[in-house]
């Protein structure tokens, strides 16, 4: 991990801040799309160092936050099926559905296990042959290839008690949706690092060209983020709109072709509903028909009624950069990390949780 330290060098960061201050004239709104960036920005206190011309907005890049309430309801429904063990990433535990959460279901005795990878869920299925293990597949292009690989492995191991409930989301369609939404004003995107390792910088070319918006793929260390902000500010000052890659040590133009092949062997794009934003065409992943036997939606009846998101919760507007958490009437009043109303307060990478943890 040593190589990272140079990006944490206070001297380097200070120099970049000076450079930003020297060139920033216009008022700009820059969106960090990814939740990991949001947390890094708060942890290192980047906002406080920037000139007031620059506003940072947190985008829809926290997988838990954009999971729709109905998807959560379906997760809860499957947890209530007899002889089912639900395997999930820990982040999902506290997210409220319409009437319950996985955490509450676990307290009531439902079998819900936190795993760190879909492959742990496979092992769980293998060691519990009398049970049905359902893995809750959420996340972006970062996690989807591994989950696809776990399905292929399940097929190889001939497991008949393992399935995935896919609620994956794709990043580029969300950026397009933001650019076409009313009332959204964004002058540049800090594009996610981990996602881009898989999809490559090439994935943002259409967004840059179609909407004439500056995009910089960024790493996660303070100096990475500051440098990306500098690159975006430079573009906005000169009126440029190009695609740049600050995170060259990890991200290539082509991305990881092999990972994408695995991902698209098992999944295919589908329309998906994003929490607070609504349905975005071709922005999700569903399991292909060839893998039906590993598709939890085919194995169980997981249809859930349409449900309204909680009244007053501004998660949607926050995810789109239209509001900041303190502008939500529920923030820090009825909605806190111990009693979250919306997912942005639940996930460790949620914008509201970040504001609460570092600003409250």
């Amino acid at each position, binding site marked *: *991990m*040593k190589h990272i330290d140079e990006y*944490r060098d*206070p001297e380097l*960061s*200070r120099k970049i801040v000076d450079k930003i201050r020297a060139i920033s004239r216009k008022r700009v709104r820059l969106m960090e799309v990814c939740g*990991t960036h949001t*947390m890094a920005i*708060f*942890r*290192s*206190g*980047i906002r*406080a*160092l920037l000139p007031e011309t620059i506003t940072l907005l947190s985008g829809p890049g926290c*997988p*838990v936050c954009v999971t729709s309430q109905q998807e959560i309801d379906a997760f809860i429904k499957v947890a209530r099926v007899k002889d089912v063990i639900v395997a999930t*990433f*820990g*982040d999902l*535990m*506290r997210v*409220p559905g319409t*009437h*319950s*959460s996985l*955490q*509450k279901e*676990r*307290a*009531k005795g439902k079998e819900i296990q*936190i*795993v*760190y990878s879909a492959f*742990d869920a496979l*092992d769980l299925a293998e060691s519990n042959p009398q049970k049905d293990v359902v893995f809750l597949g*959420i*996340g*972006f292009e*970062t*996690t989807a290839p591994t989950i696809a690989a776990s399905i292929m492995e399940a097929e190889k191991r001939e497991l008949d008690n393992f399935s995935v409930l896919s609620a994956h989301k794709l990043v580029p369609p969300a950026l397009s949706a933001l650019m076409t939404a009313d009332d959204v004003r964004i002058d540049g995107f800090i594009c996610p690092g*981990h*996602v881009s390792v898989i999809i490559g910088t090439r994935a943002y070319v259409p967004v840059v060209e179609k909407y004439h918006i500056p995009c910089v793929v960024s790493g996660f260390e*303070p*100096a990475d983020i*500051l440098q990306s902000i500098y690159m975006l500010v430079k573009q906005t000052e000169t009126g440029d709109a190009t695609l740049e890659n600050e995170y060259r040590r990890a991200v290539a133009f082509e991305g990881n072709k092999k990972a994408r092949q695995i991902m698209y062997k098992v999944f295919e794009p589908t329309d998906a509903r994003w929490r607070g934003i609504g349905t975005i065409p071709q922005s999700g992943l569903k399991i292909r028909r060839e893998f039906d036997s590993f598709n939890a939606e085919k194995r169980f009846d997981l249809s859930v009624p349409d449900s309204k998101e909680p009244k007053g919760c501004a998660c949607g507007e926050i995810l789109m950069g239209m509001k900041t958490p303190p502008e939500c009437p529920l923030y820090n009043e009825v909605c*806190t*990390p*111990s*009693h979250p109303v919306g997912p942005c307060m639940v*996930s*460790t*990478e949620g914008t509201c949780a970040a504001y*609460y*943890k*570092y*600003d*409250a």
Partner: protein
Amino acid sequence: MSIDKILLDHGSGGKASHSLIADLLVPEFENPILAQLDDSAIFDIEGKRLAFSTDTYVVDPIFFPGGNIGDLAVNGTVNDLAMCGATPLYLSVGLIIEEGLSMADLKKILKAMREAARKADVLIVTGDTKVVPNGAADKIFINTSGVGLIPEGTNISGHNARPGDKIIISGTIADHGITVLTQREGMTFESPIQSDTAPLNHMVREMIAASDQVHALRDPTRGGVGTSLNEIAAQSKVGIKIYEEALPIREEVSGICELLGFDPLYVANEGKLLAFVGPDVWEKVLETMKASEYGKDACIIGEVVADSPGKVFMKTRIGSTRIVNMLTGEQLPRIC
């Protein structure tokens, strides 16, 4: 959605645990000794000041690199007593054993307890054993209680930190929590990390002997350094400033934290202490700690300030300042 059941968050050591204690337990048993809410209860009996503390251990897995549930249970109560400046003397042990635990495992745990008691120089003088049916407990749970004597003139409490105090940590943080986590859930990290479980009472005795200006001590166990600092800031009604650069974290621990999205400030320690020491004597106390077996890596991580009472701030590596809040729930691994 109101909460009508106990959730794992209530045991995290963070905000939910604190509100459970403050809203439910303290009002039920209300008395001035309990109200202090230090690591041990402190009271006088016939002219002697005593410290009395209890703790229950439910760690999973029960064996981990660097120790097991046995030495953890002894060291934990020894340290809770030591954090009040007491000399720990006698311990009780309650064992809740799940039917089916192997005799060899039990012997190994008892042996670790004996060895830990010997190192800490305490006697285990009474105990109780219960066996419950398979599934009613997870292998073994251990409760230890202990009493200790507070030397005359010693007044160490979470209420006593004051502006100007330097804050010393006795060594690297987050080792225990990350060790246990990586042993759990079948995570396969090849790493040399070990739990830091250790008795701190001898070091505390030497620190007190070195200076009468050790104002507050706390072992940042469950909830980690971040939670302990918030507790002291609230109890002492002072502000706390720490420096990100100064926090001692092993490279491997920091790497795993990055990977899982954990903040090492909130990860448990079992053999570390935070000391709040007067500005004129910190060097002497720090030297004393460094000379002690469990304080070799001791260093200053921050200071107590007069403004913003009850709040903890961190000066970040890149020169900004941010708040360090209390943990609000179990830290859960992130997914990307």
